[in-house]
């Protein structure tokens, strides 16, 4: 695949993930504002999340969208502000995507299972 085709494909995935994230972030912000009233505790968080498969599905999808969206954005910044080559920035993006996916799914598993 040519470099231009790769860029176009990454742009597409960046925008598709952004559309998903727009929805997720609105729900997440509302949840944050609701949840922090009166302080946060581990018991309070886990009571809401443990064995809740809606939470697992929602935040699982949230993690996937983050793991797509964040690395592509960082790769473009690395190219434009740090002068990285397209090849290097895309390789970095793959590593960041994998790290975010692993850490994110681990976090979802930790609070749901």
């Amino acid at each position, binding site marked *: 695949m040519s470099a231009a085709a790769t860029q176009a494909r990454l742009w597409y995935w960046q*925008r598709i993930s952004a559309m998903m994230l727009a929805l997720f972030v609105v729900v997440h912000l509302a949840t944050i504002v609701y949840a922090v009233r009166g302080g946060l505790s581990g*018991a309070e968080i886990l009571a809401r999340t443990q064995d809740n498969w809606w939470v697992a599905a929602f935040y699982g999808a949230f993690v996937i969208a983050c793991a797509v969206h964040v690395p592509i954005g960082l790769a473009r910044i690395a190219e434009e502000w740090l002068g990285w080559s397209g090849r290097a920035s895309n390789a970095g993006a793959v590593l960041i995507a994998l790290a975010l996916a692993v850490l994110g799914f681990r976090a979802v598993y930790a609070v749901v299972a």
Partner: protein
Amino acid sequence: MSESARIGAAGRRIAVRRNDSRARRHPAWWAFLAHRVSGIALAAFLPLHFWVLGQALRGEAALDSLLRFADQLLFKFGEWGLVVLLAIHLTGGLRLLVIEFLPWSGLRKNWIAATAGLGIAGGLAFALALIG
């Protein structure tokens, strides 16, 4: 910016754009900068956020001790800042989607105003919830 993205690290042309102060005297440039800086900050925070939640694997007490550690004014201020940045990045991102996917209607400065407004509103809602 899209052109500089296509040509990648071709330094000279990007440097000319960077030094053009006329481009910076424009709300859309500040909207671009706010979107980018908020994105970097959120990207830096995300692994930490996942790691803290992952502490629940070691039991409720482990998660609780981290939450108690974070229950300090400095951390609360940081959390407030992240909520504001998330609201800014959300609205700024919606503006980009509107510019790119809806019929062209200028740089959508109304969305730049909405970005600032929702950043403030999100910050106030979070601050009030913390107090309440």
